[in-house]
């Protein structure tokens, strides 16, 4: 981020400090939009706190009158009707997401280092072109053969099926490469003279330098994995292996478990938002690098 504090030398700049009428209108518009953007999130919180009679109240009321945490208790109990305890879905989601995020950062950064300008090998450019091309189509395109391959590997209904395929994340490699390319060559040359191996350079120089890039990658892959319903849907069979989005689809909407559904929706949507709130500055810092130079 640039904080400019220079002098203007008498030239009147375009940016003025005074608060004009136009700026006031703009601010009001943005605040209105912000309220609109917050609407579903507030709704989810409010709904999760509503006792069952308020959830089914007619005519419906947006705000909660007598907030209670009973729905979360219901969620844990109502799950006996789901054949698998609720905590199992939470465990599956957390375990799969954390593993995928960690491995994606590691595998993606390692590949990015090999593809960065710190190395030169024949075919490097071609390989990176392939990676960029793969950014240009939806992963759904490959879902059928992916299913066949996972099936052939015997991974159906195993955690492997949910953890390994996402590691082919081209976005991870793309983002990390943009960053690693910026690491000054002199630092690396100096450490090679000092006898550092590629492994040491990777851990001691590259990874610390690219910290904000992994924050971005972390949140992106967290959101993608946490919210992904496609892979668990096609790669799992038994209820024991399913993750939160699928559970939400099963119990969501029904009147019978309205309370549990509201609580589950809350638990589903808030983790990514909370994590992002903590990482926001780092994420924005690194985002400037995710451009395609043409």
């Amino acid at each position, binding site marked *: *981020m*640039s904080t*400019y504090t*220079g002098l203007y030398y008498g030239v*009147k700049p375009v940016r003025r400090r005074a608060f004009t009428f136009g700026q006031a209108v*703009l601010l009001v518009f*943005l605040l209105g*939009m912000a309220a609109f*953007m*917050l609407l*579903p*999130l507030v*709704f989810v919180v409010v*709904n999760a706190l509503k006792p069952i009679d308020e959830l089914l109240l*007619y*005519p*419906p009321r947006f705000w909660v009158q007598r907030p209670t945490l009973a729905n979360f208790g219901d969620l844990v109990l109502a799950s006996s009707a789901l054949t698998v305890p609720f905590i199992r879905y939470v465990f599956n989601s957390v375990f799969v997401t954390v593993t995928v995020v960690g491995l994606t950062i590691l595998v993606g950064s*390692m*590949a990015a280092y*090999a*593809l960065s300008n710190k*190395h*030169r*090998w*024949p075919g490097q450019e*071609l390989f990176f*072109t392939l990676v960029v*091309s793969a950014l*240009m*189509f*939806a992963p*759904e*395109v*490959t879902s*059928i*053969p992916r299913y*066949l*391959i996972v099936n052939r590997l015997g991974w159906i209904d195993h955690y492997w099926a949910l953890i390994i*395929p996402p*590691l*082919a994340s*081209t976005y991870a490699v793309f983002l990390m490469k943009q960053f690693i390319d910026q690491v000054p060559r002199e630092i690396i040359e100096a450490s090679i003279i000092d006898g550092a191996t*590629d*492994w040491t350079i*990777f851990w001691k120089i590259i990874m610390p330098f690219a910290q904000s890039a992994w924050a971005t990658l972390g949140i992106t892959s967290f959101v993608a994995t946490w*919210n992904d*319903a496609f892979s668990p849907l096609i790669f799992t069979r038994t209820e024991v292996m399913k993750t939160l989005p699928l559970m*939400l689809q099963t119990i969501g*909407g029904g009147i019978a478990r309205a309370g549990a559904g509201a609580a589950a*929706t809350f638990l*589903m*949507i808030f983790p990514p938002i909370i994590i992002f709130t903590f990482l926001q*500055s780092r994420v924005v810092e690194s*985002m*400037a690098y*995710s*451009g*395609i*130079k*043409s």
Partner: protein
Amino acid sequence: MATAGQVIERAVARPAPGRFARIIEAYRKEKVALLFLAPFALAFLVFTVAPVLTAIGLSFTYYNMLQPPKWIGLTNYRLLFLDDSVFLIAIKNTFIFALLAGPLSFTACFLFAWLINMQRFRKPLALIFYAPSLVSGIAMGLIASYFLAADRYGLLNNFLISIGALNQPVPFLRDVRFIMPFVILVQLYMSLGNGFLVNIAGLQNVDRTLYEAAAIDGIRSKLQEVWYITLPLMKPQLLFNAVMSIVSSFNVFWLAVGLAGFPSWQYAAHTIVAHMYDYAFIRFSLGYASAIAVVLFLFTFGLNRIVFRALSTRGDY
């Protein structure tokens, strides 16, 4: 960026004598780099490259997973375009969706990033605008269906009736006229995602002195400033965003399922991905579903090439 064609040309055009020896020597020297690449390369080959090739291969076969695939040439494609009226609906919907939601979300990502970046409280504002994009398609579909429900329980219907704008509840998600517009609206609502953040970051990195220099050169309004300075400077980010918004708008499936059900009423929100999912994982007609995947692949890829060409020509300096 060099295209695949250019890269291949360059690789092929190298002088012949001692070429292999030199290549092997180069690989030997970068042994460690290749080891670093190996885990990703393996996953990429097995779960991306091989699947694309397999999908193309399977699209020329009849395959139901029980019997080995049987070669049937172009039959799948002929059925797809000549006999499958639902597929044509899916294509139409996907294109309406991509051509409306894609450019609109791309524009909104820039517009809001630009407006928010001028504010003093840009951090909390950015967080609020970004938050809906973090919500899963299924969850957002569920939430939106509370607002849009057909009976008087629906908050929108309830609100419109209470202010007297409506006499009777409108079944927004069961009426063919309303399903698509609402799916597009909710998608737009969730579209201030990574593209939006990329723009905020890009805007913060624009060198302030350029604006001052431009003021001297006679740039007067904020609009001129954004058109002549900011946009050209942010070309790489914009290109990246354009690609991402095309990919994600072609990709829409879960939100449509969450909002309109599967299959949706009179296929009003049926997309190419939905059609593929139907044939692949419900009817197990994998050859046919692969043909759908290949068509989707060609559409997305083709559109991205066009966007690339269009954006690459503007403002080169």
